């Protein structure tokens, strides 16, 4: 038996569980409603019959027990942070505190309606007002909009504000500069606002060179969108100089704050010359990822951009908190109501739980953990940029490819050892990238187990490459045929005809 037998990976229980639509029995129910205490008029008496439908065909008829068992069973086919190490680069998969879940479900939050008069929502407004101040302090910016529902939504909101700002000066300008190492959302968000994307190449050290920005910069450039620390896990050490170059031609500096976890309390984007930043609460501030949301991507801005923030903002007037809709230069609204409020509650609870010192300690530990992994795996895997990293490190498959073992194979093999794979094939500037972000919530023992597994896989790639190429062997299903899924899309269940 090879490596995985000695580590945390197991097969556990693996139920076969059909779709819920293939279960149940006519007439079986999983709900209860109180008896109707008003006159039970027929629907047809209240709404014209041609606007009414009958019971929806195909909806399952199952009991409460069936529902609980079904979702509990399929949940067991998922890997989550609660099950083990999840070093997915650029995603900051840190522990999600359970007390945050409890407080978000307090009736005063969970059962509050967004159109409550401000006077009856003072607790919610105070929480948002304080959270805005904490995020402003951490990012070094002046105001923060809590509206955006995800990181990409924050980027979009930011680019809209950039556009409105330039428009107020006469012209929205045409272009946005984006380093080639950026997340794909950066160019997509720019394009949604009608901007042409100009790609900036990274220098030999893996960071953006001021010269490259100076050459691309002109008075039609609305902004640069720069990720710092960048997607190689490196600190953009010329950031202040780059900001000065962009500012000199009237451009704005947008920082993709997806990687803020690396620098909290150590250095602040506002102090680098950044004008706007989105802060991913589901990364740095412990909102659970939930299998792909909900997240939130509040946007911090410098004073001169504050007039353009989405409405409403939360303001403190004498001793009361109010929602302010009267902001004539605002870009408008980017979502309904005032925020993904439940996410704000969790982020607030997280910041209060860590406090100033804890937040800094989190960043420092995340960086220590990443550098430790980088150091321990150097040699076993090719390290394209061998220098200090921040919250994550990026390796490649350049060594393993000699035995025809690719990054994808290494990633799948890690599952057999009981770990979630790192982010793979990103950033695009590293061929066969393996992007590892440990976060601060992992112990040295866990990191050592992961390092041992990675080294073992490197050995397997040399000595028994077919084992790695055939991975994963332990999960309930093997590699999925993704080509087939895309060529003959089956996107929903249909009744058997």
């Amino acid at each position: 038996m090879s490596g995985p037998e000695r580590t945390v990976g197991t097969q556990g229980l693996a139920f076969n569980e059909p779709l819920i639509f293939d279960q149940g029995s006519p007439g079986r129910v999983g709900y209860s409603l109180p008896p109707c205490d008003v006159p039970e008029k027929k629907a047809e008496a209240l709404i014209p019959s041609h606007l009414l439908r009958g019971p929806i065909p195909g909806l399952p008829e199952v009991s409460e027990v069936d529902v609980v068992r079904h979702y509990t069973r399929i949940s067991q086919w998922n890997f989550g942070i609660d099950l083990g190490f999840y070093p997915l680069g650029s995603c900051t998969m840190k522990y999600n505190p359970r007390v945050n879940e409890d407080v978000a479900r307090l009736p005063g939050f969970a059962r509050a309606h967004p159109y409550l008069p401000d006077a009856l929502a003072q607790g919610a407004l105070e929480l948002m007002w304080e959270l805005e101040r904490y995020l402003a302090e951490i990012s070094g910016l002046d105001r923060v909009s809590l509206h955006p529902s995800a990181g990409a939504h924050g980027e979009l909101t930011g680019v809209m504000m950039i556009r409105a700002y330039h428009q107020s000066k006469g012209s929205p300008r045409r272009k946005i500069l984006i380093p080639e190492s950026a997340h794909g959302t950066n160019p997509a968000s720019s394009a949604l606002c009608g901007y042409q994307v100009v790609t900036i190449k990274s220098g030999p050290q893996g960071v953006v060179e001021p010269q490259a920005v100076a050459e691309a910069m002109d008075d039609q450039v609305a902004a640069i969108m720069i990720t710092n620390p960048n997607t190689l896990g490196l600190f953009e050490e010329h950031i202040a100089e780059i900001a000065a170059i962009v500012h000199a031609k009237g451009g704005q500096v947008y920082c993709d704050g997806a990687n803020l976890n690396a620098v909290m309390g150590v250095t602040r984007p506002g102090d680098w010359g950044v004008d706007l930043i989105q802060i991913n609460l589901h990364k740095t501030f412990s909102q659970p990822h939930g299998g792909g949301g909900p997240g939130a991507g509040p946007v911090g801005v410098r004073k001169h951009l504050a007039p353009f923030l989405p409405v409403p903002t939360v303001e403190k007037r004498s001793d009361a908190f109010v929602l302010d809709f009267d902001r004539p230069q605002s870009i408008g609204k980017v979502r309904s109501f005032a925020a993904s409020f439940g996410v704000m509650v969790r982020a607030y609870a997280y910041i209060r739980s860590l406090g100033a010192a804890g937040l800094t300690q989190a960043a420092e530990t995340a960086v220590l953990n990443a550098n430790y992994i980088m150091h321990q795996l150097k040699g076993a895997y090719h390290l394209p940029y061998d220098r200090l990293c921040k919250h994550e490190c990026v390796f490649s498959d350049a060594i393993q490819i000699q035995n025809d073992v690719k990054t994808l194979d290494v990633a799948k093999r890690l599952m057999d050892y009981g770990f979630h794979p790192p982010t793979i094939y990103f950033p695009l500037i590293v061929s066969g990238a393996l992007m590892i972000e440990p976060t601060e919530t992992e112990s040295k023992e866990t990191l050592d187990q992961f390092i041992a597994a990675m080294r073992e896989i490197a050995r397997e790639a040399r000595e028994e490459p077919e084992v790695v190429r055939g991975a994963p062997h332990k999960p309930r299903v093997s590699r999925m045929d993704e080509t087939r899924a895309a060529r003959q899309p089956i996107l929903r269940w249909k009744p058997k005809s």
Partner: protein
Amino acid sequence: MRYIPNTEQDRRQMLDAIGAGSVDNLFADVPDALRLKRPLKIPPALAEAEVVKRLRSLADRNADADRYNSFLGAGCYDHFSPAIIAHLVLRGEFLTAYTPYQPEISQGTLQALFEYQTLVCQLTGMEVSNASMYEGASSTAEAILMAHRITGRTEVVVGRAVHPEYRQVARTYAAQVGLVFREIAFNEAGVTDLDAVKRTLGPQTACLVVQYPNFFGGVEDLVPLAEAAHAAGALCVVCVAEPIALGLLKSPGECGADLVTGEGQGLGTGMNYGGPALGFLATREQYVRHVPGRLVGQTVDRDGRPGYVLTLATREQHIRREKATSNICTAESLIALMATIYLVSMGPQGLREVALQNLRKAAFAKGRLGKVSGCGIRFGGPTFNEFVVRVAKKPAAILKQLLKHEIIGGVDLGRFYPELADCLLLCVTEQKTREQIDALIEALGGVR
């Protein structure tokens, strides 16, 4: 710090292994001038019990629907959420997983989302649904952008009976690419004026947007609206803010809608002061490659076992970058799971029954309010669980008076519609008891 396992000794060992003298040395790449040389101005750490106490004190200062007799709706609805929803989504396997990029160890999320996509199709009468969007307003905006991409046209015809915030968000999005909005008045029945729609649709119209039921609770007759849109070569976008209504109302798909979008919050996910909510977007198969957001598809593994993957990714930003259909990636998977559990728990019978209760209770309240002195029902058309009441006194004064009885009497419509400045929008869901409705009538002076 209890969330950070490494001890001082662990740190020392790791630093020694790296060959770095201190953690500070690991930040040597941050120029000294950029370093923060003071502690963050954030209060010191609280213990867990203190965090709970602080958050409870904030929560206690909100008038939640357990303590107040609230008739607020307007895009956020108080429906009962079965206990199993909260319990199941708190399972760490669902709660603490990322977007299912590695399908072999994400089949739970993937199968649940495949079930969600199916349920949205069943509810809306459409053929394809994505795996969730942020919330109703931005989903409506994305649907409009999608119609613009499909038709290549640049005008949007939108009913004024569409949620004001949805229209506002759609304008914010559409303004970026220069789409022109033409708004259509509502008539005395409280629904979109069909003749005005026909007059306004033109060769540049990308889509007609109507809400179903609309912002005033009015049930639009979608068939002639969709026909009018199609006659002009435009798409018909139907947005739904109250999905419970689809337990009873003919599906938009059956009525000719090309895109159905909106808010899934009503499906047992809670109010949460407005979010997180659940955007959905469903369409016809022919438009699938224009859909924004994630899609889950069925396939097989190497050994022929069925399973699920994220698919048609070539639409998406991580592949297509600036040419993507949208920038959306992380959306609302866990909320989609809540809605999924709600819908399968209710089943065909429960969904119909809960919709009927909403209809009946709202009709009862509407009938009673129509007989209260100084109150009148503003529109003549059929409504689902919301309706507009015209009041003789100033709406703000009435709301204030009701608050003395711990009643929140709905939304003052003057906030959104100057012509309805003498009106309130009230919502009555299955959560309202007859006693609570009677209390409202009583506080307003009783039936004359």
